[in-house]
């Protein structure tokens, strides 16, 4: 009878919203539409400006959609040799650097999930660096004395481990791979190495993806390291070159030095300045595109992985 009784109960109607809640939801919807606009519009503006006609951009006609579609800016960017050279450097530094970072962090994170003699000391040593550092100048001098100044190596190994990422990875491994699993594996004859390579790595896909994005984007976006440690122009990464193009106060003519290839005659010069107006937007698209794309592709793992890792972090 009892089962019958339950079967007769109508599905529970959701509780009707109070009038306050209706207004709350309306307010919330409006709020988020405004926020989305504020967040996305600048990015959208860059995108449409990069494919518009330079004159329309400088006159401020490009507001909601591309005006007089043209790829003239991208053409100018394509011909800029320094930019592409630095683009190659940035790819090298990012790939090698993040591969190293992820490997080192993951190994350390795994080790820190176990108990061993001296763990407290090592933990302290790692966390302490979050709160106290040598500072820019002592670090610079130390690394210069080690012969790392102006080498590609430093662009790859500097900032190799971020304490925060290490902790996120450790928390993730702790929560997804319980110690029981390790004990079971030990009974089957595993040691730390085999367990790490055959159990931890295959099961940590999510956190590896997250670390790749964190480290990769940090490296791709870093210009300051190169500003401090690199002298040769041929070794500079993209962002440092971009700085010259984008982030210097330019009067109308000097923007420019950047497109000086065209400046053989006055006609070439004015044309170069005209192009530079959109080429800047194109540079932004070309340089930011990969980072954003990587994030959007990894997005699926991202939210989940970051959340597991950051809880109790």
């Amino acid at each position, binding site marked *: 009878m009892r089962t019958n009784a339950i079967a007769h109960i109508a599905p529970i109607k959701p509780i009707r919203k*109070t009038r*306050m*809640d209706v207004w*709350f939801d309306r307010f919330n919807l409006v*709020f*988020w539409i405004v926020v*989305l606009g504020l*967040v996305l519009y*600048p*990015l959208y*503006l*860059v995108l449409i400006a990069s494919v518009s006609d330079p004159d329309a*951009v*400088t006159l*401020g006609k490009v507001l909601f959609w591309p005006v007089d579609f043209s790829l003239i800016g991208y053409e100018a960017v394509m011909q800029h040799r320094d930019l592409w050279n630095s683009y190659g450097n940035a790819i090298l530094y990012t790939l090698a650097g993040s591969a190293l970072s992820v490997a*080192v962090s993951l*190994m*350390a994170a*795994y080790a820190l999930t*176990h108990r*061993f003699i001296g763990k407290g000391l*090592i933990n302290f040593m*790692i*966390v302490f*660096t979050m*709160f*106290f*550092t*040598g*500072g*820019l*100048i*002592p*670090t610079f*001098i*130390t690394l210069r004395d080690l012969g790392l100044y102006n080498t590609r190596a430093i662009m790859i*190994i500097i900032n190799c481990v971020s304490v925060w990422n290490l902790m996120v990875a450790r928390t993730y491994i702790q929560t997804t791979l319980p110690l029981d699993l390790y004990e079971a594996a030990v009974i089957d004859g595993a040691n730390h*190495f085999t367990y790490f390579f055959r159990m931890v790595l295959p099961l940590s896909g999510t956190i590896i993806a997250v670390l790749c994005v964190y480290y990769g984007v940090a490296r791709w*976006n870093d*210009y*300051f390291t190169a500003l401090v440690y690199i002298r040769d122009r041929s070794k500079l990464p993209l*962002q*440092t070159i*971009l*700085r010259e*193009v*984008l*982030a210097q*106060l330019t009067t109308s003519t000097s923007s420019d030095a950047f497109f000086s290839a065209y400046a053989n005659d006055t006609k070439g010069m004015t044309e170069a300045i005209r192009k530079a107006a959109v080429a*800047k*937007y194109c540079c*932004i698209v070309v340089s*930011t595109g990969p*980072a*954003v794309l990587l994030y959007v592709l990894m997005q699926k793992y991202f939210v989940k992985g*970051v*959340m597991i890792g*950051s*809880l109790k*972090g």
Partner: protein
Amino acid sequence: MIKSPVRQPYIPGLFSARYWKRVRIRLANDWQLYVLLVPAIAFFIVFCYMPMYGIQIAFRDYKAVRKITGSEWVGMKNFQTFFSAYYCGRLFANTFLLNLLNLLWGFPIPIVLAILLNQFDRVRLKKFTQTAIYVPHFVSTVVMAGMLYLFFSPTNGIVNHVITSLGGKSIYFMVEASWFRRLFIGSEIWQHSGWNTILYIATLAGINPEIYEAATIDGATKWQKIRYVDLPHLLPIATMMLILNCGSLLGSNTDKALLMQTPGNTSVSDIIGVYVYNMGLGRAQFSYTAAIGLCVNLINFVMILSVNWISRRVGDTSLF
């Protein structure tokens, strides 16, 4: 019934042979863990602890040819020079104000966003929103500064086009000192407040849904749920973030300030980090700038410890 004797765990004395035997066995079992840790430890030693050892140049007169340890001791001279310099106060004030204002504006916004996102009732739009608000975080500092220069340019910038078309006068945003902090903090908020919601959203997602159900049955409105469920749950983590942030109130976002510094706004954009960079690397005043760096580091360190101590006393949340 006979009580079975409680077995005491055997704790061998520090100097007994059995203690060392245990240590040996544990080391033999765990040596692979140490191997896995070696690269990370090596990194921290070379890139964090060796520079800390190099801090001693703050008390020396560093000459490149004589290396760090061969240079002459000068005691507190470098510190005295800095503290008696006329720009010292300005540097501290600029750095502190920039960070404080940034904290005041930037700290609450992610919490508000996280709470409102958590209450957002349109599932698909919510997902899209969550993805979208993280995107600006992936824009580099250089590009961010570049966008500011482009959008706020007095002649071609879209902002000034809008201002003039509404009948206003165009403003030299990047040059005027009064605009530096607003643009700096505004762009910080644009870039990072979405990203900084992650922690809070994770915390909110971890709240037991039964609590919300109980609240609904008790007739709580959404405001009341936010007030009596969300906020108390967010308090510990928010306190932790606040403590962490207080540890960098004199820290410098050098790379961004360097990009946004123009001749017109140096009176406010001259912050400690930029000064250290310019004097240290630009003019090779290594010892002097190392001393400045050390001061700032120490102040930050003391600040984080004291805020941590206070918050442990007052609200029992603390980092350590």
